[in-house]
């Protein structure tokens, strides 16, 4: 830890012009062109593509959110803030928003927590063995494969799989409870508005945790071994090494993971759409913004309102991004 560099802090940006520079040839344009043209040439094409395919749909969506567009006809008119007015008074929207926020708070915490724990156990948490001060638990390479496996499956398959598992009549979950004599714990699972969202969260954690195990493992393997050896010589236990060495050195990776999980939590569309048909679960108990946009557009023929929900989603995402980048600012260690 030789050097501590501040990240995200302001570095002096002012450009100093060499006082005695030779007078440049040509007029101002060629000068400008010499300086930036090359770069601009390369940047313009992707920028145009980005503007057409990324920026313009955003702008259009915002535009359409002020119309009564049905999505079934190109005939529509401006209605001002009517869609937003409807949105603010719509119970389902608030419910969906609440669910997304709940997912946003819980999913990353649980998934990343588990990911970190597993990765730590696989890489440094094992017993000391010959010739190696630091090692993972026995058979850690096999565990890695097992953990990563759900990541290989498409979310559609995962969701279908768990739909059967949760089936209260012949699903594996109730059958397992039955088999060990815990029939009293049998539930309707996805059919119970109290449980449905938690069931979905479990699936999302299950399918994502493996990715973070692998990601964190990779990051951990780049931490120099001698840090651990030094800590062990000083008598640190596993918990101390985790919180004093591993976690601080992994902070950047954790932050990246947090953003990814946040995106997944703000989406959650596929799992909800496939698993809790209805859609949106019993009494909208698993309704999320993404699905609400979809049903408003494709079932109710109210694309104008749907785009308003989409804009609301955009705002939530932006707030999330700001918060994460604020929280993320901290010192980075280099080694």
């Amino acid at each position, binding site marked *: 830890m030789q050097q501590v560099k501040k990240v995200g802090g302001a570095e002096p940006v002012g450009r100093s012009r060499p006082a005695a520079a030779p007078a440049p040839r040509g007029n101002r344009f060629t000068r400008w062109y010499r300086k930036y043209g090359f770069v601009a040439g390369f940047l313009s094409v992707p920028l145009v593509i980005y503007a057409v*395919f990324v920026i*313009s*749909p955003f702008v*259009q969506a915002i*535009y*359409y959110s002020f119309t*009564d567009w*049905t*999505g*079934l*006809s*190109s*005939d*529509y*008119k401006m209605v001002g803030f009517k869609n937003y007015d409807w949105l603010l008074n719509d119970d389902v929207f608030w419910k969906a928003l609440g669910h997304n926020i709940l997912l946003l708070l819980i999913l990353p915490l649980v998934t990343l927590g588990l990911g970190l724990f597993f990765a730590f156990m696989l890489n440094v948490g094992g017993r000391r063995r010959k010739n190696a001060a630091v090692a993972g638990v026995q058979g850690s390479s096999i565990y890695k494969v097992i953990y990563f496996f759900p*990541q290989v499956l*498409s*979310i*559609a398959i995962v*969701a279908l799989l768990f739909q059967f598992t*949760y*089936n*209260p*009549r012949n699903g594996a979950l109730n059958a397992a409870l039955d088999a060990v004599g815990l029939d009293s714990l049998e539930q*309707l*699972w996805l*059919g*119970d*508005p109290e449980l449905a969202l938690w069931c979905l969260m479990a699936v*999302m954690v299950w*399918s*994502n945790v493996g*990715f973070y195990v692998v990601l964190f493992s990779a990051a951990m393997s780049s931490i120099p071994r001698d840090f651990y050896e030094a800590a062990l010589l000083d008598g640190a236990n596993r918990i101390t090494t985790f919180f004093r060495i591993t976690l601080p050195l992994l902070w950047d990776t954790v932050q990246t993971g947090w953003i*990814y999980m946040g995106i*997944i939590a703000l*989406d959650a*569309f*596929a*799992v909800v*759409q*496939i698993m*809790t*048909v*209805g859609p*949106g679960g*019993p*009494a*909208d108990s698993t309704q999320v913004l*993404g699905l609400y946009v*979809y*049903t408003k*557009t*494709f*079932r*109710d*023929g*109210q*694309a*104008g*309102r749907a785009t308003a929900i989409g804009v609301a989603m955009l705002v939530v995402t932006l707030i999330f991004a700001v918060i994460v980048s604020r929280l993320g600012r901290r010192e980075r260690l280099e080694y």
Partner: protein
Amino acid sequence: MGSTSDFGRRDLVKRSAALGLIAVPSLGALSACASGGDSDGDKVDKGTKSEKNPLAVNESAGLDVVIFDGGFGDAYAKDAEKEFEKRYPKTAGKIKHTATQKIQTTLQPRFNGGTPPDLIDNSGAEQMDFGTLVGKGQLTDLTPLLDAPSIDDPSKKVRDTLREGVVEMGRFDGKPVWVLYYAYTVYGIWYSRSLLAKHGWEYPETWDDMLKLCKEAKKKDIAGWTYPGKYPYYLPFSLYPFIGKIGGREVLDSIDNLEPNAWKHPAVKAAFEAYYELYRKGYILEGTPSQSHTEAQTDWTQGKALFIPNGSWVENEAKKTTPDDFQMAVGAPPSLDDGDKMPFGTIWASGGEPFIVPKNARNPQGGMELLRIMLGKKSSQNFIRQVSSLTSLNGGTEGVDLPSGLASAQELLTKAGPNVLNPRIQDWYVGLNKQQIGIGALGEMMAGRMTPAEAIKKIQKFADDTAKDDSVTKYKHS
């Protein structure tokens, strides 16, 4: 990262990209947007009108058909297309046939872009909202088809060969007929004759008998009822006619008309409480609130429950799991008490599988002609045989060996005579009926998480909200 939401996000992105792409031209046409994407110019020329070709179909234009691939599959439509090709040999190989469950996601971009197909079976969980389609002038008036001679008997008009009420159902406001319902569905309480007979039971004609029968069945470890808990909007298939039977036609009409306090009618309360009794006494198959329609139907065909609210498509849909000696049958809602306004035998029967010809279709005459062929005896009988359901063609069952469920539906229909109900809330206000009433209240009530009184209060509020919502096109019984 190659992670998770492959299905969802990408699909959604693709769709929004598609929408975005459509949006670009429409944004350009913004100044002229009031007239919309009227693309009359893309239409094919009409053919020559003749006795054989009364709708003046362009014989070489080809055809674009989209069929909902649900309980009835799409083979019947393919067969009809073959008939079409036989009649107009020049179209051979030019008929584009698409079968999908995702009607709206498939077709919405095409409607927006002004290039919809020529004939659509707008059905299923993702059917396009009729109110919006009609309100936005997206459909072709089918009157020329109804006035064309029937394919079997040129002296009769197509409209005179159809079952009572079918033409009416296709009207949304005023004169034009926007929708033609091809199938004719009998809704009610479906059961197995052989299962009842095995235990010496009879189909209950009163609600008290229904409860008694369920009690008996419970002793034998058979549940009384099951229903698709994930789609609780199947419950109305037997509940709405029950309400109509108790309180009379007007109750259902006022519900359809979104009249204030329509749901507060005593008949609604009585019917809800009767159904709630099924839950309270434990006559609903365990786990039902989590089952999809196929899961519930399988439980039912396996004899785990006696009754299921359903429509006549169930015979075809549940074919694979139905034992040979099941003897499927449909029953009318039992009588609640002597005060019922309508006699036992009152049922809900109405057109199913709504077919539409879009306004901007390239070849609307072709679309209508295919429907005319489908409404002929040959295609109708083919449909009856293939999928065990009636068509809107009156009769047409002569000489066909009807499977037991369909035979019972036919019998029930004859017995009901004029006492046929047709609640329109199902097709007038799809979102209200499915999401709000079905999933928001009825499903909750039958799972025991809401009392009938709470459910009624909630539904009334949903209905009032819809009545107030000026983005929803309103319809009234005339």
